[in-house]
């Protein structure tokens, strides 16, 4: 029974303590009708004391989550992975990218050089905030990843990837995140289980009836006065059925979110989020993760990667995007600190870009690219790659980096090992399950 009624802890233990805490907070925050006058003062105190209420939540002994919180960040537009994780030891990289190539770490130039990872690959200088995370073993890179989709169409490639398919065409029309949620529905029925920080539901969540799309956690609110809120508390209190339980959970979530003060949320460990959509999104995710409100999957996007023209090299358009990405991710990991133990972040894009730069100092749609995995259980400090090589004869006929790792092998490994999913073959039909990316 605890499985259905409790989503504050995914371990099915410590239910009573967690619920008791929230019920107490709830009593102060939404006084019963009889106690309106007496309670008003308390309610006001509780309102003013929101920060301390958050502190109370975060400082309470952290319960071990049974499964991770999964954060997906989709770089929309086809990010140029060859300039994110640079194969600087490949001579053809510099031959084909005379203007856009990022200098090798050993280059005599003093700035704008790749940051060495393993003697072969280097990070784009704007990704510098990620280097310490990589070095500490909490970030893994899987290079030459992608799908079978060779249309090089954003739409087709994104549709394939968000649906968890090898390529667009036949196969389930639902999203891979939705199928994961469906396969593990019984484990978590929090109203905040799956959130897309976006205006509309991304395709990866199509078919998930219980997912929420919002850009601001403040949008998750009851559009009513305290009288109705308090009456709903009374109405949903006695029932023992699924609807009554869901109603109580929703009221608790509203209550907890109210006490969280997302707007005034202060990051821990001196972390500073960039003031960007991604930074604000991840800041809210961190707030939710710490509050343990049953968040299981958060889907975020970052657009602008379709760099056909004036892509820039160590500085410029792409560098600016990478700077935001790296700062947001670094702030997130710093903010969460030891909480990162129960969190896995995946960064991916629908395809990489052509090796050869074009006449507009940009790059065209290509094939393979890198995926980032961040978390304390990832096989980090390493660039995983069945590297196909960058010499002309090693590229695909169009001149693109060949895909040697199915992106689904990586995602499947994360779902199976970190998310408690025992049916990854149904989330990714026909895909071989990968291993070794996370512990």
């Amino acid at each position, binding site marked *: 029974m605890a499985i259905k009624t409790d989503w504050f802890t995914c371990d099915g233990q410590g239910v009573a303590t967690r619920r008791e805490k929230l019920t107490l907070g709830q009593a102060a925050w939404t006084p019963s009708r009889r106690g309106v006058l007496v309670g008003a003062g308390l309610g006001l105190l509780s309102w003013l004391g929101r920060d301390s209420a958050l502190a109370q939540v975060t400082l309470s002994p952290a319960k071990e989550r049974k499964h991770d919180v999964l954060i997906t960040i989709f770089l929309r537009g086809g990010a140029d992975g060859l300039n994110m994780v640079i194969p600087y030891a490949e001579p053809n990289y510099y031959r084909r990218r005379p203007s856009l190539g990022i200098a090798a770490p050993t280059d005599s130039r003093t700035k704008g050089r790749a940051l060495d990872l393993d003697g072969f690959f280097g990070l784009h200088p704007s990704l510098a905030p990620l280097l310490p995370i990589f070095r500490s073993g909490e970030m893994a890179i899987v290079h030459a990843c992608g799908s079978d989709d060779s249309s090089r169409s954003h739409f087709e490639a994104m549709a394939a990837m968000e649906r968890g398919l090898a390529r667009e065409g036949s196969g389930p029309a639902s999203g891979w995140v939705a199928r994961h949620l*469906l396969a593990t529905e019984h484990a978590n*029925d929090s*109203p905040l289980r799956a959130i897309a920080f976006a205006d509309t539901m991304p395709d990866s969540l199509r078919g998930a009836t219980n997912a929420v799309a919002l850009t601001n956690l403040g949008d998750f609110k*009851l559009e009513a006065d305290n009288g109705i809120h308090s009456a709903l508390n009374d*109405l949903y209190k006695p029932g023992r059925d*699924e609807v009554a339980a*869901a109603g109580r959970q929703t009221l608790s979530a509203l209550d907890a979110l109210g006490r969280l003060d997302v707007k005034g949320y202060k990051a821990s460990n001196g972390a500073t989020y960039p003031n960007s959509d991604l930074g604000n999104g991840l800041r809210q995710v961190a707030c939710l993760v710490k509050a343990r409100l049953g968040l299981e999957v958060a889907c975020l996007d970052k657009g602008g990667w379709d760099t056909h023209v004036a892509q820039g090299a160590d500085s410029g358009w792409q560098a600016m995007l990478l700077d935001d990405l790296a700062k947001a991710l670094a702030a997130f990991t710093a903010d969460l600190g030891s909480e990162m133990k129960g969190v896995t972040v995946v960064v991916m894009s629908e395809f990489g870009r052509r090796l050869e730069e074009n006449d507009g100092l940009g790059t065209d749609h290509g094939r393979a690219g890198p995926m980032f995995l961040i978390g304390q259980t990832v096989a980090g400090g390493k660039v995983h790659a069945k590297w196909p090589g960058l010499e002309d004869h090693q590229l695909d006929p169009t001149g693109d980096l060949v895909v040697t790792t199915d992106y689904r092998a990586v995602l499947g490994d994360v779902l199976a090992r970190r998310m408690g999913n025992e049916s990854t*073959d*149904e989330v990714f039909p026909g895909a071989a399950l990968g291993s070794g990316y996370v512990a």
Partner: protein
Amino acid sequence: MIATRRDLLKAAAAGSIAAAVGGCTPITAKIAERDPALPLPTGPVDPTARLLARTSFGHRPGDIARVQAMGHAAYVDSELAAKKGEDPRFKELLNRLEIFEIGSSDLEDFHKEEVIEQLHQAALIHAIYGSNQLRERMVDLWSDHFNVYSLKGDTAFRQSTEDVAVIRKNALGTFPDLLRASAHSPAMLGYLDSQLNRKGVANENYARELMELHTLGVHGGYTQTDVQEVARCLTGWTIENRFLHRKGTFRFDEDRHDNGEKLVLGQRIPAGGGQEDGERVIEILAAHPATAKFVASKIVRYFLGSPDEAWIDRTAETFLATGGDIKAMLRPILLSKDIETSPPMIKRPLDYVASSVRAVNADTDAGTALRAHLTQMGQVAHGWPMPDGYPMRTSAWTGSMLPRWNFAIALATGQIQGTNAGELGTTPFEATHGRHPHESDKALIAACTGKDLKTALALCLASPSFQWR
């Protein structure tokens, strides 16, 4: 009898052979099969209110007294006949929608998003204003049974034809007619990749779902070889796209058809049959006892809220005896006392929105504002990506309590543009619940006491008891 999560998954994995190749469907089936973890609500049931809750999208003021006066049998027969003329408001609203005026090939000139919005609007207009409510209920059931996802490919442009000529036309007809219409439907052909199914490179997508979801059921006794053979029979069934032909209609393409001999469910289909191969498959499947049982189980689940074995057997017998006559299957169920004693069913978002609008006697244009609420709750017409249709199980819908409450409050307080509540003619409780309050309603009655009418109405709509039917 509480199985652990691990046990459930193990049992499900062992029980479903199709799981490895069938995509997402088996996951849904697994979850649907598990025991509910929490008890269902108990409470008083008014026989007439319950009958209306199951055979319509909720009562309007006066409906319950009217059905009581005419008697349940007369009501059920009149609903089965489905001959009532449509409301002027219904006609006015529907006439504004171009999707029913313009053929599917010309619809392609419009933005897909607009077409999808109109499809959603049409579904709401039918549920809220349709005079023949039982037929609308059957449209709801069959639209899930023969689910088509409007965001895939060009299906949105074929969907209005599908709604009218496949689903609504046959909703109370016979199952074989319905199945045949669906199999020839361009929306379904496109949705399940029939255009990729051709000689030598058969695509099994439609063939599999045809047997697993439309007819025999996943345990209906077919094999992987049957799936491949059915796919071969259906090669060449595709959508017209040639110059100077009516685009977007059904087409049998002889050149793509595999004309060899096939063996389907033990029956030989001789070589050289052309389109007849596929027609023969539909015939075999439509008359199969496993189909009778599977379709019966869908109907029984839909009206009685649980897969009652005795009713499934009885309904399957009727299916086989009448050639799949849908009315003949429905009548005994609807006239049975078991409607009254059957377990409560959660209102899915369309049920919830339509029953709320009907209960408060609202006038609505089913416009953007109303649809936005339904979208928030997670049920857009033709918006379910998987071929199994929107789920019926309670747990699929309990994540939408907040959008339900916000809708209830907005409806009661006149905050939904284009939707205005009318005269209730009674108390908010009786208007929404269709019966007098009972001991178990005391929390709701207490909550409403001393509140203004709008607040009381909002609470009745937002109450736990109004989430069930």
